[in-house]
């Protein structure tokens, strides 16, 4: 299971960075989304995957009796998902506006800021 996750995360990171390096604005957004998902899965994996052991203390006991799934990574992922969700929607609007104003989809042609003024 861990191996499978590791491979998926690797693919997500690689695909995300590849997409960010492309010149198209839309692919930039896709890259950002993939990278964000990769990071979230990485937190999940590194928080150790424990199957079928929710972090609930049985009634008759006062402490945990066996290994349990760590709830902290899930809280972190939830926070990170919400944040990256907001950022992605901002990115989509930004790209739409930029496309409308600059009239190009090619990042290489967005060089008005580097011109001498």
């Amino acid at each position, binding site marked *: 299971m861990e191996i499978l996750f590791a491979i998926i995360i690797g693919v997500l990171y690689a695909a995300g960075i590849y997409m*960010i390096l492309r010149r198209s*604005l839309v692919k*930039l957004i896709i890259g*950002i989304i993939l*990278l*964000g998902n990769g*990071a979230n899965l*990485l*937190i999940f*994996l*590194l*928080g*150790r995957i424990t199957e079928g052991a929710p972090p609930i203390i049985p009634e008759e006991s006062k402490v945990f009796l066996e290994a349990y799934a*760590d709830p*902290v*990574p899930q809280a*972190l992922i939830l*926070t*990170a998902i919400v*944040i990256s969700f*907001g*950022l992605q929607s*901002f*990115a989509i609007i*930004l*790209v739409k*506006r*930029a496309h409308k*104003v*600059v009239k190009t989809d090619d*990042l290489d042609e*967005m*060089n*008005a*800021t*580097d011109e*001498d*003024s």
Partner: protein
Amino acid sequence: MTQQLILYPLLLQLLLSILLMFFWYRINAQRIISILGSILHLGLTIYVFSFIWNNGIQTLQAGSWEAPFGITFVADSLSITLVLLTAIAGLAVSIFSASSMIPDRLKFGYFPIFHFLLLGLNGAFLTGDIFNLYVWFEIIIISSFVLITLGGEKAQLEGAVKYFTLNFLASMIFLTAIAVLYGLTGSLNMADLAIKVAEVENRALVQITAVLFLIGFGIKAAVFPLYFWLPASYHTPPSAVSAIFGGLLTKVGVYALIRVFSLIFVGDAFLDEMLIVIAILTLFSGGVGALIQNNIKKVFSYLIICHIGYMILGLGMFTEVAIAGTIFYLIHDIIVKTNLFMVSGLIYRIKGSSSMRALGGFYSDYPKLSLLIFIPLFSLVGIPPLSGFWPKISLITASFNTESYWGLAAIIFASFITLVVIAKLWAEVFWKNPGEIRERFKFDYFHKMGKYRKLGFVAPIVFLSFVSLYIGFGAENIQILSSRVAQELMDNQLYIDAVFNNAQNPE
């Protein structure tokens, strides 16, 4: 009561931004609330600062969850100094925005977002939890995205695309680093991490994590070779926005680097050497970049990069003298860079251009203003007794002590380049006969403004120039402050004790 004290600056900013939202279209009310609120914030921060100065490091466990489990807020001397500087720069920029931002931008929520940005900065400086730091970083960048795009001019949007992408990438790398660190130690509290990371046996993995943090924060702090987003975007928004970005946003990256590499990843020769190499290259490339620019805002953008190098160099040498130099430089730099971007805004309003080739004759037209602008410009160079001079003494002494002569050479080289750049700027903008600048219609020239608006432009520059002068002439006090910060940073046990002792016996 005193426990919550350190949260008050943060809560005040939150309250301000919420309050400002109720006055969405009433921009005059927004201006007044923002300025009054910033004055109140400055007063409050001075109070908190003096409290911490007298009583030592204060901590707050959010929701009374004990230290390694809940979110901790820690105010040591470094944090509270930076919060104080944020308040000073915030007040100046607030006054400057009130008169320099056009009403159309103010109507789309400039002031609420501006105060959200300050909230994020305060939070990032005060938190003692690494994931919480990530969240504050996100608040900062989301607010800065809005500020940089507000207005939607072509150059702004292009700059914003670059700014957005690189900052998002930095956040993702930071998040990856947190994930690996959590996997290694199972903790997020920075004091707890300091203990647990030292015990990890797999040092290679710790180094990789540290490098991930270095890349993530390095993009935000704009160090070599990760700085290319900065000169492509910082000159595009209005000067008030550039001022707060140039003064504070990159410094948050520097703060995070100082915090992480003085608390969690300490005493690793490989990392320190890497920091020194990066710093030298940053000093070099930023300086050379500034030399060839023509737009004054872009010159200042490159100088930001160049001077980040000083701070990273001090951090890399990691002796008490070097850290004191770094902190002193940080204090000086925040004030001066904020001021310089406001100055560039003022020059643009007066002449209608930012191009050094076209500008000229400023000194003969406005001799008093020129003398005022002289102060931040030459503080930046570090002509004694102005403020940029003193931290360099500490840094040079430290590089002699640690025998890093390349660092020494870079410090002197970067100072020299800064001098050349500023001298060139002074000659071009202030002394030279003016070139051809077309009179613009519908342009809001400085000389057509009313008395109060003019005051709104000049007053914050005067204010920050006085702060700069104080840092220069009262260097002894600042040196005492930075030495104390350096002592606290060198001995990370103080930080750890403050977090855990308070947790064991809450008052």
